[in-house]
C-alpha cells in the first residue's frame, strides 16, 4: 500500500512538472486571430490531460524498473497475478468517459472557431503553382499581398487553378485546403496588427516550399488608405500605356517561380533574349519569337509547348492578370536582352 501512495504522489508531481515545463517552453506562435483563442484553450486543456497520462504510465513504469528489478543472484518468478477484472473495467470506462467529454468539447470548440459574422468582408483567394492572388470584390481591387483590417471577420472564398493547395497562417491557426473544381471557405478575424506569412501547407509540386504570400493586418483607417491607393494605381495603369517597370513587378509576383531572366533553365524557358530568338516547339515547328507568340504562350500555354519543357497549365485569367498586365509583361520582356 505504501508503494501505491509513493507512486500516486510521484504521478501528481511529474504531471505538474511536465505541464509547467511544456508551458514554459512557449509552444505556440503568437495569437493573431480571434479563432486562435478557442483553439489554444482546447490545446492547453489537452496538454494538461496528456501530462497527467504521461505521468500515470511513466512513473509506475520507472518505479517498477527500480523497485522490482531482479537482484543479482536472485532466482524465482514474480507474484502470480493474472489480472483484475475491476481494474480492467475501470481503465476502460474512465478513459471512455474522458474521451467522450473531449469529443463533446471538441465539437463545441469547433463551433466557436466557425462562428460566422454575416457582415464579414469577402476576399477571393486563388492559389496556383506557385503563388497566391487576392481579390476584394467589394472594392474592385486585387493584390498579391493580403491586407486585412484588424478585428473584422473576413470570409475567404478560395479556389485553385491546378492542384490542391492549403491556406495557413500559423498565427491565425486555422487551415483550409483549396481544391480544384470547387470553392472552399474559411473565416478568420485578425485580432492583432502586424505582418505575417501565408504559407501553402499542402504539397503542391516543385516550388511548394516557396509558395508564400505576405499578410498585413492594419487598422481600418490604414486599410481604407491602402484600398484607395490600389484603386488609384489600377486606374492610372489603365490610363497609361504598357510599362516595363510595372511588368517587372508582375514578373516577380507571377512568373519568377518558373522563368528566369538571367538565361538559366527553370521549370519553363528563360526570358532573357526571348524576343527575336528562334523557338522550337515539341511538334518540331520552328519560328522567330514575336509579341503575338509571347501573348499566346501566356494565355494558352498548352497550345505551343517549347521542346524540352513539360506542358504547364498556367492560367493567366484565373490568377487575375488582365490584358493590360500582359502588355506590361511583354514590355518588360523587351528590355531583357
Amino acid at each position, binding site marked *: 500500500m505504501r508503494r501505491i501512495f509513493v507512486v500516486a504522489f510521484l504521478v501528481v508531481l511529474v504531471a505538474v512538472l511536465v505541464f509547467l515545463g511544456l508551458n514554459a517552453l512557449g509552444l505556440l506562435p503568437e495569437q493573431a486571430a480571434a479563432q486562435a483563442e478557442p483553439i489554444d484553450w482546447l490545446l492547453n486543456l489537452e496538454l494538461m490531460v496528456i501530462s497527467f497520462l*504521461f505521468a500515470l*504510465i511513466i512513473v509506475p513504469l520507472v518505479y517498477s524498473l527500480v523497485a522490482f528489478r531482479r537482484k543479482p543472484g536472485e532466482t524465482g518468478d514474480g507474484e502470480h497475478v493474472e489480472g483484475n477484472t475491476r481494474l480492467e473495467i475501470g481503465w476502460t470506462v474512465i478513459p471512455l468517459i474522458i*474521451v467522450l467529454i473531449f469529443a463533446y468539447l471538441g465539437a463545441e470548440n469547433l463551433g466557436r472557431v466557425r462562428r460566422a459574422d454575416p457582415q464579414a468582408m469577402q476576399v477571393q483567394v486563388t492559389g496556383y503553382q506557385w503563388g497566391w492572388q487576392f481579390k476584394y470584390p467589394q472594392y474592385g481591387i486585387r493584390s498579391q499581398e493580403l491586407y486585412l483590417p484588424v478585428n473584422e471577420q473576413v470570409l475567404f472564398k478560395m479556389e485553385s487553378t491546378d492542384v490542391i493547395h492549403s491556406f495557413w497562417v500559423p498565427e491565425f491557426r486555422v487551415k483550409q485546403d483549396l481544391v480544384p473544381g470547387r470553392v472552399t471557405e474559411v473565416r478568420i478575424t485578425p485580432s492583432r496588427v502586424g505582418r505575417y506569412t501565408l*504559407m501553402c*501547407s499542402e504539397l503542391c509540386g516543385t516550388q*511548394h516550399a516557396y509558395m508564400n504570400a505576405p499578410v498585413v493586418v492594419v487598422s481600418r483607417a490604414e486599410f481604407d488608405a491602402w484600398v484607395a491607393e490600389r484603386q488609384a494605381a489600377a486606374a492610372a495603369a489603365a490610363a497609361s500605356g504598357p510599362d516595363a517597370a510595372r511588368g517587372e513587378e508582375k514578373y516577380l509576383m507571377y512568373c519568377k517561380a518558373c522563368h528566369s531572366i538571367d538565361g538559366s533553365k527553370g521549370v519553363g524557358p528563360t526570358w532573357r533574349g526571348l524576343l527575336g530568338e528562334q523557338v522550337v516547339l*515539341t511538334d518540331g515547328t520552328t519560328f522567330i519569337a514575336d509579341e503575338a507568340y509571347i501573348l499566346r504562350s501566356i494565355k494558352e500555354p498548352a497550345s505551343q509547348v517549347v521542346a524540352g519543357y513539360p506542358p504547364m497549365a498556367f492560367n493567366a485569367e484565373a490568377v487575375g492578370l488582365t490584358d493590360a498586365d500582359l502588355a506590361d509583361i511583354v514590355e518588360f520582356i523587351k528590355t531583357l536582352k
Partner: protein
Amino acid sequence: MKKFLSTGLMRGLAFQILGTLAGAGFVTLIRFLMGLKIWGWDKTTYGFTEPAWVFGGLVGVLSFLYGTRVLDDWLKWAAGKETHERHEDPPGWVKFFGPSLDHKVIGIQYTVTSLILLSVGGLFALIFRTELAASGLQFLDPDLYNTLMSLHGIVMIVSILLGIAGVMNYLVPMMIGAADMTFPRLNAFSFWIAVPAAVLLLSSLALGGFDTGWTGYPPLSARAPLGMQMFFLGVFVAGWSSILGALNLLATVLRLRARGMTAFRMPIFVWAAVATSIISLTATQLIGLSFQLVMFQRLFGMGFFDPAKGGNPIIFQHLFWFYSHPAVYVFVLPGLGIISELLPVFARKPLFGYKWVAMSSLGIALVGFLVWAHHMFTSGMNEYLRVPFMYSTLLVAVPTGVKFFSWVATLWGGKIETPTPMMFVLAGLVVFLLGGLSGPPNATVSTDLHLHDTYFIVGHFHDTMFGGYVFPFFAALYYWFPKATGKKLNEKLGHWHFWLMTSGMLVLTLWMMRVGLLGMRRRIADYDPALGFDLSHLVMTVAAFAIALSVLIFFVNVYTSLRKGQAATGNVWNSRSPEWQVPSPMPAHNYEKEFRVVGEPYDYGLPGSAYVKFED
C-alpha cells in the same frame, strides 16, 4: 559466384528486366502501327512512352515470378502433372535466395528484405535530412528533394509490411504448433511478389521521380513525372503480397492450432497477428484501387479525379485513407503484440488481463476502420462529417489505454530483468506512449486545423511507427535471433544500438513536434530562415545520424555474432512458449513430436504449471 547468379532471385531479376523490355516493346509496336508517338525524352517519356513503361512494368513483375520458379508447381498442376507434396531446401545459404516452402526460411527472407529496404529508406531520409540541416538549398534541387521524401515514405511502409510479415511468418506456425503455414506455395508467392514491387518502387528514382509524397493525391499525381506510375504499380503489386499473406495467416491460425489451444490459450502475439491480418485482408484493396484509378486517369484520360471532366479529387482521399489509416494499425499491432509477448517473460509474471489485451487488439482493428476521414479535416470534405470522425478517432484511445495499463500492471511486482530485447520492449512502450499522447490534439478538429500538415504530425507518426514497430521489431530480432541461428547477439553492441537509437529518436521526434507547433510545414525542401528553425533542424539532423549509426551497429552485431557469437541452443530467456522448449535452430517442419496445450501461456510464478506438454 556462379552459384549465386543461378539462384531464383538473380534469375527473377534477369527475367524482370527482359520482361519489362518485352512488354514495353510490345506496346511500342502497337503504337507504331497506330501511328502514335513511340519515342522521346521528357518528364513522362523516358525513351519509351508512359503506356509502354507501365505495361512493361507489369509484364516485368510476372516475368520475375516466372523466372524465380515460384510458380512452377502451380503451372505443373495446371498441366496435369504431379509434384512432390514437400520440397527439401538445398543446404547452406543458397536456400535463402530462391523459392522455399519452409515458413522459417520465408520468414527470414521477409525479414532480411525488410532490413535492406529499411536501410535504403533510411538513407533517403538521411540525404534530405542533411539538406534540411540549414535553410536555403544546399545540394538537392526541390524535385529531387520531393522524390527522396516521397520514396522515404513508401519504402519504409513496404519495409514495415515485409518486417511484420517476416516476424509473423516465422513465429505464428511455431507458436501454435504447426509444421508450416496452411498454404506453403502461396506463402512463397506472397514473399516473391514483393521483391519486383520493391524494384518497381526504386525504379521511379531513375524515371523522373515523383513529387506527391507517398499519399499520391491527384491532381498533382495526375501531372507528376513518369516515376509516379512506377510508384502506383509498385504499391499495387506489393498489396498482393499483403492480402495473400494475411489470408494465409488467418487460415493457418484457424486450422492448424495444436490440440488444446483454444482461442484464449493462444500466445498473445497470435492475437495481434490475427487482428493485423483481418485489416490487411480487407482494406489493402482500397489503396490498390485508388492508385489504379489515377493510373488509368493518366493512361486513358478517364476523369475520375479530374474536375474538368466532372471528377472529384476528394473522393481519392476517402479511398486512399480507407486503407491507409487502418494500415497504421497493421504496422503497429504486431509490434504491440511483441511487447505483450515479451513483458511477461522478462517481468517473470503473467500478462495482466490477457483477455482484455487480446480483445483490445481486435478493438483497435475494428475502430480503426471508422476513423479514416480524420486525415481530411482541412480537405474541404463535407464539414459536418468532421464531428463524427472526431468521436470515432478519440475512441481509439480506449483499447490502446487498456494495453498500456495492462503492461504497467504486468511489470508491477515482477522480478524484472533487462537484457537487450527487454530494453527495446521498454523503449517501444515509452516511444509509443509519446506517439499515442500526441494523437488527441490531431483528433479534435479545431486543434487539428493548426497541426495538420505540420512537423507536429511528422513527429507524432514517427513516434507511433518507432514505438509500435521499429523498437518491438528490433526486440523481436534480439529475442528470436538465437532461435533462428543458435547464436546469441552480442549484448554490449546491443546496448550501444539501444542507447543511440532511443536518444536519437526522442530528440528527433520531440523536436519535430516542437517546430511543427511553431509553424514548420511538413514536406518542404527549404524553410524561411526568418522562422528561426535553423538550429532546431541541425539538432534533428544530428539525431537522425545517431539513429542511422545505431542501425549500422546492429548490422555489425549480426555479422560478428553469426560468425563467432555465443552459442545459444537452449531456452535462452527461460520462456514458457513452445518454440523455446526444443533446441535451436529448429528443423524444417518444426516439432519432431506434437504438443498438447495443458495450461495458460503466461503462468510465470505458478509452481508446477506448464503451458505445453509434448506427446510421447
